[in-house]
């Protein structure tokens, strides 16, 4: 299962999408919005996504994970739009016969997702906003 959604992520559904009677282990990674960044209060985040390519890239990452580890299921749900601190931005679940594989594969998926999948977040602070990781300081836009 791969899902890009503006609605709150139902974590149990992401887990259920990986269920298998041969599985002894499911590892789940949940990304949540922190209330501070660079020592400042985050009011909200805006997530933007190039959806068709994001789905294709996530598919490649899941295929590569299934190639490297003996997985029984994998699911990724990523939220886009406006998110407040505490909300879930991404949920990844991986099921496998044994736990070591589930941990390693889940970590590989989130690490690679953060590196390659075309999704961008902008942090909105009380005094300005900033696209994350994008550029040197010169173009930050603060009031």
């Amino acid at each position, binding site marked *: 299962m791969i899902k890009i959604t503006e609605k709150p992520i139902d974590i149990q559904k992401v887990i259920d999408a990986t269920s298998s009677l041969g599985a002894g282990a499911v590892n789940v990674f949940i*990304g949540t919005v922190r209330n501070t960044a660079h020592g400042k209060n985050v009011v909200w985040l805006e*997530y*933007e*996504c*190039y959806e*068709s*390519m*994001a789905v*294709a890239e996530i598919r490649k990452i899941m295929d590569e994970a299934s190639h490297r580890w003996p997985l029984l299921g994998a699911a990724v749900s*990523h939220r886009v739009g406006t998110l407040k601190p505490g909300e879930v*931005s*991404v949920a990844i679940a991986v099921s496998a016969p044994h736990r070591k594989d589930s941990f390693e594969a889940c970590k590989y998926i*989130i690490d690679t*997702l*953060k*590196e*390659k*999948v*075309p*999704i*961008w*977040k*902008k942090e909105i602070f009380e005094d300005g906003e900033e*696209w*994350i*990781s*994008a*550029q*040197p300081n*010169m*173009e930050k836009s603060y009031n």
Partner: protein
Amino acid sequence: MKCRVKAFGISRDMVGQGEFDLDVPEGYTVALLRADLTRKFPRLRNLRSLFIAINNEYAQDSLTLAEGDEIALIPPVSGG
């Protein structure tokens, strides 16, 4: 040839629009596209990196564009 360009994240702010058409000559490569775009939109040079995707795939600089290709500007990603 006509191609469609999509700009995402901060690159959309830098080029001033989310989508636009681009007329490109035969044999036009991603390297030429990148040079032309940064000349036309100099703020793109401030990015830590700028990848180009063609039809939903990261593209090498040597790739040649074809009629109807979808070009996407991919500034540093920050999903998760």
